[in-house]
């Protein structure tokens, strides 16, 4: 696999190569080179399977991290590609032309993070949230509790427990509240 | 009486004068030209009158000697007749050519010489003189052709010269050897001394002569040059060639007929009839109008030649009238019609068939054109029809069935390309190129009028004048003349006329005929109410309808098979025209016509065979004991085509569905019953001992039940409303055929009861469809939906009629089913009964689909504003509903008369006990069933009505849904491809094998024609080679 990484390094500006497991490597690639790298992997290196496409909100760095997980069934090997994009204007090139189902992930990202993928099919349609009007809910600056309290009708008198402690106190009351 | 010899003096003298003095004559030239032509026209007339009065044939001897030294001319009745006609054509042609001759002096001169030559060919009795006259006509024709002087013209003329030159060489050699053998040139003497024509020299001489004649007659395959002439020369000239020259040449051949040995004679017959068939076949591929006319001309002459050889030589026909009617009639028919067509072609600028569509702008010309086509196709009321009838009768009488078959095939092919042409004219894009001149129109109109007149004479000769037979045409023409009456008034007039005719007709009819009269007249008058709905003049529609309906009456009153067949063909043609009016593409109408004509030809064959066996055309005896199977097959086959039985049904859906919406009920409900009438008549007239026992009835029954089944099966897969109804009609008529085939009292009662029922419900359905289509502007059912709220009255009508159709009690449909199954079981046709039952359940499918797709389900947004169907459509529907309700409640009022009528023919097995109908197997009380059904319906209904206060009326999208609400009505309405599973399970049964088969037949016909016509390479030398080959072939065939 190191050979693969070497080959990739020859052509792409690859950073932060981390070997997660024996069959899983993560690497980071600049936004500009991401799609060409994925295309290369798909066409030349037989990474025929897009396992998922997700995002991470690095609000402190003002970045979104996109994770493309590709899988090579021949070697049973997965490759995670991290792409850092701007958080203020989150736009990324769509890869729905490589895998049709990528458009579904992209719709989800659009809805949940507000990352736009111009040209992706039905990108502007509702995915799960019908008629969502607030900021995308999976961004870290979205306060879900406040939203919930504001929007729904919280039943008063609700008590929250730490499940672990609570169950322990219920099941082993003799041990007392603490430990 | 003027001596005919003057013809040969005055014409050349006038020609000479005009030629030499043309600078001085100026305007007088035209005067002289026409005076001379008038003279030549006048000359034979006193002779004709004289001879018709019984005068003797006159001989004119030139130079005072008797033959063989001198030349003699003969003017007998045939000559006088033909000369009159040809000279008349000469005048008309001259009139037409007037503008063509303007500026040239040679034209009229050559024309006069040409006319003289034609007269000479007709009159001369001298072989060499015949040659001379032939050359005279040829040379004048060569010159006439060059007058317009285009390069096509010249090359065509050159080919003509080559062929004609070879012909004259052959003629000359033949003549001289005949002279050598017989010592005379006089035809009569030669014929009398025919025993001298022996040995190789004799037969070769005859073959040469014959070949020359065949070339001159333009028979297959030595006619490539003739086609070019027809194509290239000026239409006026072509008309004269087709009409005059060919006729004269035919007469020359006719004169020489007794000369041939029997084997040669049959070769002539063969060549003639083959020419007829093959030319018509090759005509299929033609796209140029003039060339097509050329093909047709040659074919007609071929028919004449073949028939003359067949009728006069091998099997001499007794009765001059018949020969007159066949040969004379055919000749006149061809001469006038073809000349007329060529003349019309001169008016039209374009070459192709479709460029004639400009005629649409001139209805009178179009009318003439249609008349001429019909005349050529042998359809009534033109001379061709009587000829066709007589040909069939005569050939059958002489057992020439093979030839008869070929001739019928040719007729059918001819009808195909002519009516395809007509359809093309009616339906292709309107062109503009036409030049109309009075001088051109006059001969055209005169010719057509003449044809009518002659047809009338022939009608008189043949069947005795029967005013009734003419009445429909007269009335229709009369109404046609009243052009500016608005459509509604015309519709009203039509209804009145139909009812009047019915009023006068009814007392004359009895029994069965009366029942059919009730089907034909009041019910079609009822359907006519729907026609009031359409605005505008609708020229032609009502006229044709009157023609159809009144002819239906004539069908019932006809006593001879000729009268029957006449009315039958009138109905066919009128229906074709009316379908053509309505359809968007002409091929549906053409398909109808072709199949109907084929059916009519089968009927004709059946009648003629019957005539051959019994010697009578009286409708009352059909065939004798040993011929009945053939007659049965022919007649039943013919009528089955009309009913649209499976295998020959492909014309039906298109014709029923594509025609105008208010004609569909008439054609499907009423006109389909003509086939039933025919079948019933056949079964009745064949004689009980045969018809009741023949195994063929079983086959007929199977055809009927298969039609019922497949009709229903086809219907359920239709997306088009009218196509579905059309296939449904096919299926329902299949039941009637099945019931008829039973040949039992119960069966026939069932058949007529079914027939009445079918008229009622199919009338309603088609009328309702018409109303819906008018409002919606679409015929696709899946585009409709939810119309129950917009058109409740139509919905109710359709509901009632589909209940009646599917045979669900308590409505009248069940009665018909009950009668049918009882009859089937009584006759022990068990498997048929099972299949019929299956078919009726399948019918249930399309019934539901019909009402669901249109009226139930989701209403479409674009049809929210539609209104209830027009009142004019609803009135007849509700009258019919009242009738259905009446006969559902009291079935006896209709079953009883039918059963009584049928009891005249077959002992009754149906009995009554009060209102209960008893058959040998079961019983049925329509009245009580109706009451009980009403009762059990009312009780829950009242129960439900009590809850009505707690009900909320909701809108169309208030249906059960949770996940996604309906998007739009178009996607929520389930209607398209409504029975996909049926398609999967039984779809293989509806593979259009029959359509494919007929398409292949058509394809092969065209392919063969395409291959065959390659012999006409356009090279004059090839044509010369053809002649050589033909001579050799005749030599081999003659077996010398």
């Amino acid at each position, binding site marked *: 696999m190191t050979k693969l990484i070497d080959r990739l390094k020859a052509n792409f500006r690859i950073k932060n190569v981390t070997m997660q497991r024996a069959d899983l490597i993560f690497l980071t690639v600049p936004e500009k080179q991401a799609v060409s790298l994925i295309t290369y992997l798909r066409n030349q290196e037989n990474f025929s399977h897009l396992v998922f496409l997700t995002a991470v909100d690095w609000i402190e760095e003002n970045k979104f991290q996109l994770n493309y997980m590709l899988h090579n069934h021949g070697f049973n090997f997965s490759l995670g590609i991290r792409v850092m994009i701007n958080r203020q204007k989150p736009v990324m090139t769509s890869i729905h032309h490589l895998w049709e189902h990528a458009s579904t992930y992209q719709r989800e990202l659009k809805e949940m993070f507000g990352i736009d993928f111009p040209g992706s099919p039905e990108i502007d349609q509702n995915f*799960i949230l019908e*008629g969502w009007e607030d900021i995308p809910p999976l961004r870290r600056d979205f306060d879900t509790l406040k939203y*919930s309290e504001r929007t*729904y*009708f*919280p039943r008063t008198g609700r008590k929250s427990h730490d499940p672990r402690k609570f169950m322990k106190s219920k099941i082993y009351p003799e041990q007392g509240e603490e430990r | 009486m003027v001596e005919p010899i003057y013809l040969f003096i005055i014409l050349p003298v006038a020609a000479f004068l005009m030629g030499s003095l043309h600078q001085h004559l100026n305007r007088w030239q035209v005067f002289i030209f026409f005076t001379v032509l008038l003279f030549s026209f006048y000359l034979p007339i006193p002779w004709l009158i004289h001879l018709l009065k019984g005068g003797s044939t006159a001989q004119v001897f030139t130079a005072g000697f008797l033959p063989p030294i001198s030349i003699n001319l003969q003017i007998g009745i045939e000559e006088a007749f033909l000369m009159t006609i040809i000279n008349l054509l000469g005048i008309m042609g001259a009139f037409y050519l007037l503008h063509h001759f303007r500026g040239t002096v040679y034209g009229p001169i050559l024309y006069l010489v040409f006319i003289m030559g034609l007269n000479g060919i007709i009159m001369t009795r001298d072989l060499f003189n015949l040659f001379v006259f032939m050359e005279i006509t040829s040379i004048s024709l060569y010159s006439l052709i060059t007058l317009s002087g285009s390069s096509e013209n010249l090359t065509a003329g050159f080919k003509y010269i080559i062929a004609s030159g070879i012909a004259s060489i052959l003629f000359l050699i033949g003549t001289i050897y005949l002279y050598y053998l017989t010592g005379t040139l006089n035809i009569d003497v030669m014929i009398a001394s025919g025993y001298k024509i022996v040995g190789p020299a004799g037969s070769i001489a005859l073959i040469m002569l014959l070949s020359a004649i065949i070339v001159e007659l333009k028979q297959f395959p030595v006619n490539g040059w003739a086609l070019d002439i027809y194509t290239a020369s000026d239409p006026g000239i072509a008309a004269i060639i087709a009409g005059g020259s060919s006729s004269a040449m035919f007469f020359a051949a006719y004169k020489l007929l007794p000369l041939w040995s029997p084997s040669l004679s049959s070769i002539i017959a063969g060549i003639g009839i083959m020419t007829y068939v093959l030319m018509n076949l090759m005509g299929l591929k033609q796209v140029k109008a003039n060339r097509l006319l050329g093909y047709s001309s040659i074919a007609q002459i071929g028919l004449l030649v073949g028939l003359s050889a067949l009728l006069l030589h091998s099997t001499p026909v007794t009765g001059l009238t018949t020969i007159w009617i066949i040969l004379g009639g055919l000749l006149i028919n061809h001469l006038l019609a073809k000349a007329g067509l060529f003349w019309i072609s001169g008016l039209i600028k374009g070459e192709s068939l479709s460029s004639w569509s400009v005629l649409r702008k001139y209805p009178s010309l179009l009318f003439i054109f249609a008349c001429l086509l019909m005349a050529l196709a042998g359809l009534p009321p033109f001379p061709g029809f009587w000829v066709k009838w007589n040909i069939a009768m005569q050939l059958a009488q002489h057992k020439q069935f093979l030839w008869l078959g070929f001739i019928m095939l040719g007729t059918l092919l001819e009808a195909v390309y002519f009516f395809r042409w007509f359809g093309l004219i009616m339906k292709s894009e309107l062109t503009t190129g036409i030049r109309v001149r009075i001088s051109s129109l006059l001969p055209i109109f005169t010719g057509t009028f003449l044809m009518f007149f002659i047809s009338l004479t022939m009608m008189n000769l043949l069947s005795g004048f029967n005013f009734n037979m003419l009445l429909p045409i007269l009335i229709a023409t009369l109404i046609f003349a009243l052009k500016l009456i608005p459509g509604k008034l015309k519709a009203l007039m039509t209804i009145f006329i139909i009812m009047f005719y019915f009023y006068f007709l009814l007392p004359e009819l009895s029994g069965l005929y009366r029942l059919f009269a009730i089907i034909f007249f009041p019910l079609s008058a009822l359907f006519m109410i729907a026609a009031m709905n359409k605005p505008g003049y609708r020229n032609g529609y009502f006229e044709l309808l009157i023609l159809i309906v009144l002819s239906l009456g004539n069908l019932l009153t006809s006593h001879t098979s000729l009268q029957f067949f006449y009315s039958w063909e009138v109905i066919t043609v009128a229906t074709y025209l009316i379908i053509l009016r309505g359809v968007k593409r002409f091929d549906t109408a053409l398909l109808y016509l072709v199949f109907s004509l084929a059916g009519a030809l089968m009927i004709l064959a059946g009648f003629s065979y019957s005539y051959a066996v019994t010697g009578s055309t009286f409708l009352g005896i059909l065939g004798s004991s040993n011929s009945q199977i053939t007659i049965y097959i022919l007649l039943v086959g013919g009528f089955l085509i009309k009913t649209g039985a499976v295998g020959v049904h492909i014309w039906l859906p298109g014709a029923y569905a594509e025609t105008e919406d208010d004609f569909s009920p008439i054609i499907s409900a009423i006109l389909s019953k003509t086939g039933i009438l025919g079948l019933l008549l056949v079964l009745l007239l064949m004689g009980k001992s045969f018809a009741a026992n023949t195994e063929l009835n079983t086959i007929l029954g199977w055809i009927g039940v298969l039609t019922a089944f497949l009709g229903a099966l086809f219907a359920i897969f239709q997306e088009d409303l009218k196509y579905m109804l059309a296939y449904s009609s096919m299926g329902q008529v299949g039941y009637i055929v099945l019931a008829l085939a039973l040949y039992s009292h119960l069966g026939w009662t069932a058949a007529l009861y079914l027939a009445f029922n079918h008229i009622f419900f199919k009338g309603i359905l088609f009328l309702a469809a018409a109303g819906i289509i008018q409002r919606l502007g679409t015929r696709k059912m899946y585009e409709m939906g939810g119309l129950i709220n917009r058109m409740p009255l139509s919905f109710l009508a359709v509901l009632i009629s589909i209940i009646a159709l599917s045979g669900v009690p308590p409505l009248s449909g069940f009665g018909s089913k009950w009668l049918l199954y009882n009859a089937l079981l009584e006759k022990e046709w068990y498997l048929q009964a099972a299949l019929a039952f299956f078919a009726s359940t399948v019918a249930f499918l399309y019934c539901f689909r019909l009402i669901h797709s249109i009226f139930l389900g989701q209403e479409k947004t674009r049809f929210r504003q539609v209104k209830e169907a027009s009142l004019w459509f609803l009135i007849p529907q509700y009258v019919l509903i009242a009738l259905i309700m009446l006969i559902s409640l009291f079935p006896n009022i209709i079953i009883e008369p039918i059963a009584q009528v049928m009891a005249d023919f077959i002992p009754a097995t149906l009995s009554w006990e009060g209102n209960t109908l008893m058959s040998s197997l079961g019983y049925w009380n329509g009245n009580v069933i109706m009451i009980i059904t009403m009762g059990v319906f009312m009780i829950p209904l009242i129960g439900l009505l009590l809850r009505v206060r707690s009900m909320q009326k*909701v809108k169309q999208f208030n249906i059960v849904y*949770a996940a996604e609400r309906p998007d739009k009505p178009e996607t929520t309405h389930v209607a398209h491809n409504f029975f996909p599973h049926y398609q999967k399970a039984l779809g293989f049964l509806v593979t259009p094998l029959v359509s494919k088969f007929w398409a292949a037949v058509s394809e092969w016909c065209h392919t063969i024609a395409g291959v065959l016509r390659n012999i006409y390479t356009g090279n004059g030398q090839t044509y010369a080679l053809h002649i050589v080959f033909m001579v050799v072939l005749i030599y081999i065939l003659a077996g010398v």
Partner: protein
Amino acid sequence: MLKNQENQPQKLANAGLPEHEKYLFCDARPRIRHPFKGFWEKFLNWARANSIWMLAYGTGCGAIELRPLMTARYDVFRYGIAPRPTPRQSSVIIIGGYCSVKTLKRIIRSYEQMQNPKFVLALGSCTINGGMYWDSYNTINRIDAYIPVDIYIAGCMPRPEAIIAGFKKLKQLIKSGKAEGANLYAENFDWYKANQKKIIKDWNMPDYNW
């Protein structure tokens, strides 16, 4: 007994629908249907209680607990309870656990399409107060703000036994004539609608799904 209906506007605005679709939906208000009085109503209630057809519509994770009800082990059929595939014919809808906004829309549709009298059985703590999703951006906290609930069954998830117990309680309510959720809904229709519309932003359906 309940508010007079004449004062309310008879027609609903159906403002959520585009203009060209309004004609496709009924715009009548739901009305209060008064029960009969006396023995007759008792008899009818008995029948209603003994023939409970539940809408077979799994709205949440709790739907998995409904399946065992029909098996041989629990056999709710013996209480006259049967699943029914269409809301038109059902008399009880079971809210099977946590309820997102998206699901709520479907629940409202299904509930409104059922016929009076109709009952609601809510399963699990999520329906009561949001349960473990109490702070989720997309899970509503209490279902009774949107449709009238007859019985809550607590638990995460309640076992089939608990559900049967709930059904028994429901039966008692029905028999005693207290399960008038449908009329409650009609009476407080505007309140319920306002609550529903507050969270369902793309209200692309009629105000009352008949």
